[in-house]
């Protein structure tokens, strides 16, 4: 018989549990120690130092990574400079062929890249397999196509390559960010010195392997590893023409200060605290899915994450109820399990930062809610978390947490939500959920955000430009606009 209770509830604890479905990891090929990839070869670092990289889900050491110092950076820049002469002069069609070859090789080795990405960074294998790696290949495919069509991208102009690009990328989408940076730079005839983040260098180093196999001329792409010190050496190197940085707003500001007075070009893709706005006429079940994709994708380690939820007050109760039920079905745990939805937090440092924000939110008086799932005792994990009844004045609403933590605020009118959505130093992305097309267009023109998704969230495509307003940075990556930062017109 049907249960008769005051508030009917759904129970997602069933006898039918999903048995572990672990991705096979035996096929991957990793060295114990990685050196720097300079001028087409792996070379020992001048610093003579290596540091360990860990699996955040098990806290086990995976490999050792070289630490590049100023001398190593100088060596890499010199190699890139030397290669630039040839690379910028070969026919654009040939350049395109090399980039296509890289794209195809990524597809061929997709499984290995996916496993290593998950091992080194903690993201669920489902995401690295279905999103990160295919998208990375797509970026190379897309920009390979532009290589011999630049004059059509910039009609009546003569686009010229800049020279050597220093590129510094974050730990949240390691291979994908490398693709975002390298592909347009190569298509426009520049050479590259790229530094991956210190906690997630492995797929970039595997990419170095792949680039070696692709036959790309030596020195066109150099991949060097290290932490902030190495990054600073790239930024400050006098013979670099262009800096592209994706990472925190604090570091972005330091970079901008450091290159002031030089003629280095700069693009910054920094933090975000996006508003995801649900109107009462929205398709609510799909909107709930969009909330989940917005904040729990990649453990919330996404600069464009929909971390501030705005729900129209007359549907707030039902949306939150549906969201809580949906959270019960999220599988949190071993990222290598194909059924895992939320994997490991990227590093201990990041987990401490997130946990600190959980404390702050509670102290500020927002109501914390976490799903009832358990988390593994080893490794860095955080339950999907909501802060209900949050307000603009809360720090958890104002500051980027970069974790699976969503703040929920209600609103009454469209003017109110626009004001609140824009009332933040960031402006990278936003989401709008409504059945009404006119409302979407009204909001897209008023929201100060580089990307506005309508009735979807966290959708990426190489053909679409991506970048921010205000403290989220400047310059665009992806699409035709993504060529602009790498050419002189």
């Amino acid at each position, binding site marked *: 018989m049907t249960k008769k209770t005051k508030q*009917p509830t759904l129970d997602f604890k069933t006898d*039918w549990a999903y*048995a572990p479905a672990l991705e096979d990891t035996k096929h991957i090929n990793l060295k114990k120690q990685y050196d720097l990839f300079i001028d087409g070869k792996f070379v020992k670092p001048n610093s003579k130092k290596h540091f360990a990289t860990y699996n955040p889900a098990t806290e086990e050491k995976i490999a050792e990574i070289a630490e590049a110092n100023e001398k190593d950076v100088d060596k890499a820049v010199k190699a890139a400079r030397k290669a630039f002469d040839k690379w910028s002069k070969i026919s654009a069609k040939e350049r395109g062929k090399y980039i296509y070859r890289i794209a195809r090789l990524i597809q061929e080795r997709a499984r290995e890249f996916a496993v290593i990405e998950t091992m080194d960074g903690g993201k669920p294998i489902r995401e690295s397999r279905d999103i990160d790696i295919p998208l990375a290949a797509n970026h190379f495919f897309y920009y390979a196509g532009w290589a011999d069509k630049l004059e059509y991208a910039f009609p009546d102009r003569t686009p010229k390559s800049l020279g050597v690009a220093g590129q510094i990328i974050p730990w949240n989408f390691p291979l994908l960010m490398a693709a975002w940076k390298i592909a347009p730079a190569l298509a426009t005839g520049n050479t590259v010195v790229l530094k991956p983040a210190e906690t997630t260098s492995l797929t970039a180093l595997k990419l170095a392997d792949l680039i070696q196999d692709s036959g790309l001329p030596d020195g066109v792409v150099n991949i060097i590893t290290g932490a902030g010190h190495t990054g600073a050496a790239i930024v400050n190197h006098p013979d670099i023409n262009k800096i592209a940085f994706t990472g925190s707003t604090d570091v972005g500001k330091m970079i901008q200060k450091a290159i002031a007075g030089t003629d280095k070009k700069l693009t910054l893709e920094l933090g975000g605290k996006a508003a995801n706005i649900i109107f009462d006429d929205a*398709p609510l*079940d*799909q909107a709930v899915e969009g909330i989940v994709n917005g904040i729990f994708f990649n453990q919330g380690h996404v600069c464009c994450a929909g971390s501030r939820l705005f729900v129209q007050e007359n549907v707030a109760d039902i949306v939150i109820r549906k969201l809580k039920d949906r959270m019960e079905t999220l599988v949190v745990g071993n990222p290598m399990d*194909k059924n895992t939805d939320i994997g490991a937090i990227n590093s201990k440092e990041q987990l401490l930062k997130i946990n600190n924000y959980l404390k702050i939110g509670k102290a500020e008086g927002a109501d914390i809610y976490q799903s009832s799932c358990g988390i593994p005792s080893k490794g860095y994990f955080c339950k999907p978390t909501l802060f209900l009844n949050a307000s603009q004045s809360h720090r958890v609403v104002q500051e980027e947490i970069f974790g699976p933590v969503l703040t929920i605020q209600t609103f009454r009118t469209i003017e109110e939500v626009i004001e609140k959505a824009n009332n933040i130093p960031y402006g990278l992305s936003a989401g709008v959920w409504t059945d009404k097309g006119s409302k979407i267009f009204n909001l897209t023109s008023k929201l100060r955000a580089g990307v506005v998704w309508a009735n979807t969230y966290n959708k990426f495509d190489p053909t679409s430009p991506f970048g921010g307003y205000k403290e989220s940075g400047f310059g665009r990556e992806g699409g035709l606009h993504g060529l602009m930062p790498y050419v002189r017109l």
Partner: protein
Amino acid sequence: MSAPIILPDFRNTPTIDQVGVEERAARFTTRSIKKSSKLQGLSMALNMIDLTTLEGKDTEGKVKQMCYKAAHLHDVIPGLPTVAAVCVYPSMVKIAKDALKGTNVKVASVATAFPSGQSSHEVKITDTKFAVANGADEIDMVISRGEFLSGNYNFVFDEIASIKEACGKARLKVIFETGELSTLDNVRRASEIAMYAGADFIKTSTGKISPAATMPVTLVMLEAIRDYYYKTGRMVGMKPAGGISTAKSALHYLVMLRETLGGAWLSNEWFRFGASSLANDVLMQIAKETTGVYQSIDYFSKD
């Protein structure tokens, strides 16, 4: 007693975003169901099947053979469940009922001028009562799609309510023929009308129209059931029918069910597959899981 249920305005049912639904439905198919959970899921799927024959050429012989299969799916493997029910035309109900005596397999009968529903109210009521009088445990009615599409929601509602009354103790499944409803918004609206009119189950298709059951359509209906349950506390069952012929897709449906409505719906009291060829594919997979090797299709009886 529970509070009286307030009828919503069926012109203003919640909107559905097709792209979002398709994406969510696809996500369920990425769940990896292996080993013990696969075997458990397959056994559950088997037990949820409404083994169906709905053809002009149906005979006593055909129905009897199918009924035997329904109760003895694959006796080589001990401990297998039976299917949930057989689904036949009203004229075959008595034959099926006799053939299934002493088993747990129920007899479901289509009714109301199946599959088009293009007949008079009286004929539909008589059709239903005839099936029930012959022993049908469940009635699978079709809605009047023409009336629905011309906006006569009251007509559709009243018709379902009166068939429900004619059913007596038999459980009522309401078929929308979603392949004729054109939009997911319409699927959602039909779901609400049927549930508020008293449906015990909502069902996608007759099997006579393509497309029949799809995961996105089923998801929209499951979400409607969820919202109705939130509001009223009454559980309504779901029956996707037509087009589900592989064990793998059956597992995808069960994953979708589990993650949309939870554990309470994971039994044949609340979920059915309307299918004629699904059972053997599930049996093949079960045999593979138990013996470790795939067997030829000729080891599985076709009735």
